Each structure stands twice: as C-alpha cells, then as structure tokens.
C-alpha cells in the first residue's frame, strides 16, 4: 500500500531569463565579431585583437586569484615563456607559427607542474612575492640565452611572419581571429567550469578551505588543475602577443606590468565574477583610447582610478553594480525553485541534486 503524501517539490536551476538572453546575445556578438574584420579598418582590427588577449589574460588571472585563491604576481613568467617558445620553434626548428602557438601553450603547462610545487608551498603575500621573483629568474635566464638574442632581444623573420597569412586572409586578421578565439574560449571555459560540480568545489575551497576539505574536496588537486590550465592559456596568449609584436626581449616579455594590468582589469572590473574582467578590460581600453596621448599623465590617472575604485567600490565596478541591482549575466549560483505543493507519489519525489566534488 503506497502512501499518498503531500510533498513540497523543488528543483535546482542554474539559469535565469537574463542569463539565457545574455547567452544568446553573446553568441550573436561572437559571430558578429568573427566576420567584423572584413569591413573594419586595420587599426580597429589591431585594437580589438589586443582587447581580446587582454580579456583572456584577465579572465585567467581572475580564475587564479578570484576562484583558486592563488595570488600570483608572476604570470609574466608564462607569458614570456610562451613568447620565447614561439620564437625558438619558428626560428630555430622551422615550425609553423600557428602550430608553435599550441606547443607554446603546452610548454606553459609543462613548466607549471614543477612550478606549482614551489608556488603552492607559499601563501598570501609570500606567494605574491615568490611568484614575482620566479618570473624575475625567468627574465634573467633568458637574458643569457645568446641564440635568442640575449638582452637585446630578437625579431621574427619576415618569412615566418608571412606564414601566418592563410590564403586570402590577411596576417592581422588571422591573428585577430586567434585572439578572439582565445578570449571567447577562456571565458566560455571559465563559465562552464565554474557552473560544474568542479566549479562548486572550487568556490567552496575559496570560501572556506577547511570546510570544503572536510566535505571531501581535494583542494590541492583543484588548485593544481586551475594553475596548470591558466599557465597553459597564459603561455599560449603570450605566444600570440609576440607573434603579433614580431619582436621579443626579456625586459618586455617578463615585465611585471603584464600582471599589473591583469590585476588592474580584474579588480577594477570585479573579481570573482566573469562579467568583471569584461567590464575591466572595457574600462582599461576606453581609458587607453582616449587618454594614452597624455603619456605619463594617463598612467597617473590609471593609478588614481585604481585607488579610488578600491576605496569607494570595493567589489569593483561590476561587483557593486550587480549587488545593487541583484543581477548576474553569467550566473554561477544555483537557485532552489519551489514548485509548490504537489500531490505526488513518495517514490516519485524529485531528488534535489546534491553538489559534490567528485
């Protein structure tokens, strides 16, 4: 005899109307951006390419600092490594530049594995300074490598730069499309990751590592995963940047300013959200487009903005906005939806998906 019970039925949803609209609009925007270079001017193509690689770098730093709790001031180590790997492979090994991009990413991941052993021993401020010093060591090592131009740097041969052109598609358009792909993929990957059970575990570790570990989350493995993935992506992006710049030197490639800009973009925009780095990159580029001709005054304004935003909008621009209006374009939270009282057979009561890490 099965008992008829009045059970409250609930389910978990991860989307809202806003987030679904955002997803469709984003998809359309990406398609638009992918065909845009055919009628845009060269200047616009170049600026947008930079926009996308800064966005990618910022999203990866956001993933590291905002979700995995790894405060790295040494991401320029991977960026420079990627750039140098590309130059080495194309100029010394006759590798096709686009293939070299992928191998550069792989090199970043490989170096990240032993790197993680060092970085993970440190925490907080120690980690920030430790990673910076590691990046300095990279710079000083590449300063010694005569075959890659040592301190004076090295230029990419014209013949190699020409290989980037695919059929009728110009070199700068190919690079633009690669940058767009990296920017979009990094954002989409972060979104998918953070909405998955792994992402839930990651955020649990960020919010309270001890509790998360007690609940069975392997926090070290999660952090390692994020560290290796972002190192791979940063190296790949670095290779792209220097394939576009055509000239690399240790001072430029391992410049702390690369990470400073990531930090600026992510924190100004709003750390711990996916919208934040997008907003931050927009702000960064708008300032640059309109104020860069001011030279060092522009940088003073940038610094002042960092101070002012941190004082008055602690959550960053997007974080404050989202809080005020309770809006999320790329939601990572889960909502419990009450379906109301339903006459249901007990055995049919829907199970609430319980989030676990494994």
């Amino acid at each position, binding site marked *: 005899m099965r008992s008829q019970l009045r059970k409250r039925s609930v389910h978990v949803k991860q989307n809202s109307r806003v987030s679904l609209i955002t997803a469709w609009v984003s998809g359309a925007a990406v398609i638009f951006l992918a065909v845009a270079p055919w009628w845009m001017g060269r200047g616009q193509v170049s600026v947008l390419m930079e926009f996308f690689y800064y966005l990618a770098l910022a999203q990866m730093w956001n993933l590291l*600092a905002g979700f995995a709790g790894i*405060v790295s001031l040494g991401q320029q180590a991977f960026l420079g490594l990627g750039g140098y790997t590309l130059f080495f492979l194309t100029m010394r090994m006759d590798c096709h530049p686009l293939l070299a991009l992928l191998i550069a990413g792989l090199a970043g991941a490989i170096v990240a594995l032993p790197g993680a052993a*060092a970085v993970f*021993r*440190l925490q*907080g*401020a*120690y980690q*920030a*300074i*430790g990673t*910076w*010093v*590691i990046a*300095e*060591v990279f710079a*000083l*090592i590449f*300063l*010694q490598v005569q075959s890659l131009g040592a301190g004076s740097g090295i230029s990419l041969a014209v013949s190699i730069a020409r290989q980037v052109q695919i059929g009728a598609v110009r070199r700068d358009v190919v690079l633009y499309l690669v940058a767009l792909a990296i920017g979009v993929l990094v954002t989409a990957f972060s979104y998918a990751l953070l909405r998955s059970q792994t992402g839930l575990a990651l955020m649990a570790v960020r919010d309270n590592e001890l509790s998360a570990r007690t609940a069975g989350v392997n926090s070290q493995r999660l952090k390692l995963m994020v560290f290796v993935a972002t190192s791979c992506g940063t190296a790949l992006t670095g290779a792209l940047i220097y394939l576009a710049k055509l000239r690399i030197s240790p001072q430029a490639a391992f410049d*702390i300013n690369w990470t*400073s800009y990531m*930090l*600026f973009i992510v*924190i*100004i925009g709003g*750390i711990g959200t996916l919208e934040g780095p997008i907003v931050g990159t927009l702000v960064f580029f708008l300032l640059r487009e309109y104020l860069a001709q001011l030279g*060092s*005054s522009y*940088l*003073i304004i*940038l*610094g*002042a*903005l*960092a*101070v002012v935003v*941190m*004082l008055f909008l*602690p959550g960053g621009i997007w974080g404050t906005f989202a809080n005020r209006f309770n809006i999320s374009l790329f939601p990572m939270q889960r909502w419990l939806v009450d379906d109301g009282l339903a006459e249901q057979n007990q055995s049919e009561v829907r199970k609430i998906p319980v989030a676990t890490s494994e």
Partner: protein
Amino acid sequence: MSIWIDSILQGILLGAIYALFAAGLSLVFGVMRLVNVAHGDFIVLAAFLALWFQKLAGFGSPFWTLLMLVPLMFVLGYVLQRAVINPALTETVLRPLLITFGLSIIIQNGLLQIFSADPQKLQGGQLEVASFTLPGGLAIGAFPLLMLAVSVTLLGGLQLVMFRTRLGRALRATSDDIKTASLMGVNTPHLFSVASGLALATVAVAGVFTGIRATFNAANGPVWLVFAFEAVIIGGLGSLWGTLVGGVILGVSQCIGAQFSPAWQFLTGHLVFLALLMLWPRGLFPRRTE
C-alpha cells in the same frame, strides 16, 4: 682566497643597504600583512625630495635634508595609511595590493614628469671616496661602512620600539590578533598609521643614503622593492633582526654570484632566496606560528 673574503665583505655591506630598504617594509608587513607594492617607489620619492630640498635650501650636505625629510615622510605615511589604505585593509591581500599598485604608478610617473627620466645623484662629498685599508690589503669604503652602521642602528631602534615601548606592545598585540587588540582598547587605525609613518621615516633615511651611494631614476622602485621583500621574507615575518640577516644573505649571495659572472649577480640572489623560501616557507626567524 682574498677575492672571496672581499666579495663576502662587499656582500655584507650591500646587504646592509637591502636591510635599510627593507626596515620599514618589515615593520608594515609584520604588523598588518600589507604587501606595499609602492615601498620601492617611496624610497625613490625620498631620494628625489632630498635632491629637491638640497637645491631649494642650499644645503651643502644631503644629510641635512633628513631634518625635513624624516618628519615629512612620517606625516605622508600616516596620512596615506589613514585615508587610503586603512579603509581597504580586509581579509584578502588584493584590495591593498591594488591600492599600493596604484600609488606606485602615480609616484613613478609623477616623478618622471617632474624630474624627467635622467639619472640623478646626491653629492656626498669627501665621504663618498674615503676608505680604510684592512690588514691583508682589503679596502673598505667609509660610506658603505656608515650605511651598515645606520642600517643596524635603524633596525635596532625599531626593535627597541617594538619590544620595549607601549607602542610596540600594542603593535605586536595587533599583529597577533587584531580583534582582541581592538577590544582591549587599541586604536588600530591610528596604530597602523603610526606604523606606516615610522616605515616611511626609515624610507627617508634609505632614500638619502642610496641617493648618495649611486644614481637613481624614477623607474628604480620595483627592483628595490623586490630586494627589500626578499630580505624581509628570508628573515621571517615580524623579525627585524631577521630582516638584517635576510638582507646580508641576499647581498652576500649576489656578490658571490657576481664573482662567477656579472650577469649572475641578481640571478644568484633570487635563486638563493627561492631555495631558502622552499626550505623555510615562513622565513628563518618567524616571530611566532601563524
């Protein structure tokens, strides 16, 4: 053999400079865990201000500028901490990190605009070239020796403040447990600001001495910051003598590395720092367990 003794000796003197750079950082980092990315730029700022004061007031020796510079930097440190950094001191290191990063760019580019990118130097007169000859033929400059003395005195003075005064007791209590210290009536915003004021007062000294020792320009800050942080971290959080030891270890490593090849000077220093950090992640003399 004497080459090695010489490089160790020079390393100790170099280390004293790093310890001088690091003294204020050690205090601020120890008390409030603040990663002050602008610390190096404050040293450069102090050096430029000394240059400016010297011209303005017509001082013969840059040391006289300390009379104005030390109080001025103390006030600057107090005000900046109170107005800008205190409100952002929360659990994470990120907000103060970005604020001090912002200050760092403002100082660097402000100095660049006012003083241009040309290297500058403070003129220390006869003292700069005076030297002693030790038995065995080793020569030691009088000025580096003076810097060593100043560095030891300054760190010793801060140590006394930290361990022998009411202020130091409150600072240590706040460092250990900020909530409990506040409950006991410690005015933490004021205290943090005093600590930052003291830190920038030491920076004034560091700026003048380093400005006499060698040329400087607006872009020197980040490199000095890295050396200062290495000295602090090798020594351990909250240990001022540890910072001196850390500076000396860094200086000696760099000088020994430079003996093999000039290009290896900084590389050796960084590698020794990383190796020590891997072996003792909390530094050689951590004041207490975290």
